[in-house]
């Protein structure tokens, strides 16, 4: 499992710029980001290289956030890589709540951040979960 930081975004231009600027100033590297929105507000989910530090910086600035453990999964960086993974989940009747991709520089391998309805089912189905250390995260 890896740490994810979710941030509340008011529907106002410049909100996300302010947050990412704050992280940049503090030397935090964003490794993955995904935005979900409603007509009234949004939510940014992020994987950063130093979650405790990022969270401290954002809280200090009065940003509303939550830290959630999510799964990082390695899939082959080839056609059908993601499809095969999702097929396994479907067979195990595990639902995906949300998913987005994670940047690395490893040739041939892709990483997905995924929040599912039942995490234990992932390991039972021979899906390769990657940890914080492997991804160089704190």
């Amino acid at each position: 499992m890896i740490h994810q930081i979710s941030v509340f975004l008011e529907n106002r231009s410049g909100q996300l710029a302010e947050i990412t600027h704050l992280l940049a100033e503090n030397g935090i590297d964003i490794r993955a980001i995904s935005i979900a929105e409603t007509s009234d507000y949004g939510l940014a989910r992020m994987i950063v290289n130093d979650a405790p530090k990022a969270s401290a910086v954002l809280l200090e600035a009065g940003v509303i956030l939550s830290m959630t453990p999510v799964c990082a999964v390695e899939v082959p960086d080839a056609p059908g890589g993601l499809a095969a993974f999702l097929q396994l989940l479907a067979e195990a009747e595990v639902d995906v709540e949300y998913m987005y991709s994670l940047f690395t520089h490893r040739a041939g391998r892709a990483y997905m951040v995924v929040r599912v309805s039942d995490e234990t089912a992932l390991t039972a189905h021979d899906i390769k979960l990657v940890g914080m250390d492997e991804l160089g995260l704190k």
Partner: protein
Amino acid sequence: MANYYQPEIETASYEQIRAWQNERLVKQVQHVWDNVPYYRQKMEEKGVTPADIQGVDDLHKLPFLCKDDLREAYPYGLMGKPLADCVRIQSTSGTTGRRVVAFYTQHDIDLWEDCCARAIVAAGGTKEDVVHVSYGYGLFTGGPGLNGGSHKVGCLTLPMSSGNTDRQLQFMTDLGSTILCCTPSYAAYLAETIHERGLKDQIKLKAGIFGAEAWSEDMRHDIEDSLGIKAYDIYGLTETSGPGVAFECEEQTGMHINEDHFIAEIIDPDTGEVLPEGSKGELVFTAITKEAFPLLRYRTRDICVLTRKKCSCGRTHIKMSKPMGRSDDMLIIRGVNVFPSQIETVLLQQGYTANYQIIVDRVNNSDTFEVMVEMNPDMFSDSLAKIADAEKELVGALKSMLGIAAKVKLVAPKSITRSEGKAVRVIDKRKI
């Protein structure tokens, strides 16, 4: 046009009105002194006895009653008659902690319905008319009041109550409603729907009696043009019986207060001092004929102006302007009384901070009501569905507290404007 319901009363001389008021006030003060210990104590604290009140000129000596008194004395503390003599209650649209319950004897209901009948006749109502009452029926005074008044005039009365626009329009066209009674915003909505559905040629409306919320002259003209009717204002509050305390005549320049039943005063809301005729201030009513709920010097919190200028309709009773605002923080949204403190209570109950802002506007003659709420860490989640569920729960809790739906907008913490360190709770953009 001699359209009076009780001509001898409605066109009585000033001296006659004054004589009625003097006599009835003296009697009413004695009635309250004898039967309402809560008010008697207030009088004693001020050192006033019934002997000090010889007529309207002495009215200023009496203590005020306000909404807090009603709450403190809830439910029976201000009754002037035993429960066995009462036949009805009505209650305000307000809710928990703010609810007002008013009691009526049969005599009280008769007089109230007379007041409403005067309003219907002033709007051109006769026994030939079909009166379409789309005010809510039930605890709200609007439906029962106009319904009773319509019976008195002998009109065919359609007790439609509010909502179900399809049914409203069906009855309106099939039964040929001629006088519509509802809130001005619902009238505007019905007018719009009638146009959308091309029903204009099938309606026979000639007049409307619209009250329970503030409306502008512009809105009046919109409704009049759109429906091809004359639109009359009506005023009242549950505490003093309901609609019909004051009503408009064809001159449409203010509402005649039924002075044979109510003595009106205008006071300075800060000092309580009585202001001369023509001054702008808070409207205070003394009910001089009510038996079961005889409120003396009740502060309405509505700001308006009184004038006794001669009216072309021939009525002699004093006129009040449309309310121009409030001397407390109550908002009237879609005809419903809303206190910001009620919203605060719900937010705290639901786990939000009490940092909020209410934005009220009027779009297409209908009130919009938005509550901006600052997101807080406890309510936040990485799942949009969970946030949306919490938001839905908040919307539901607000609706059950206030009786009307509010749109909730979640905003970032500390983003609600503060002026001089104090949050601005209400932004009312309505131009009324």
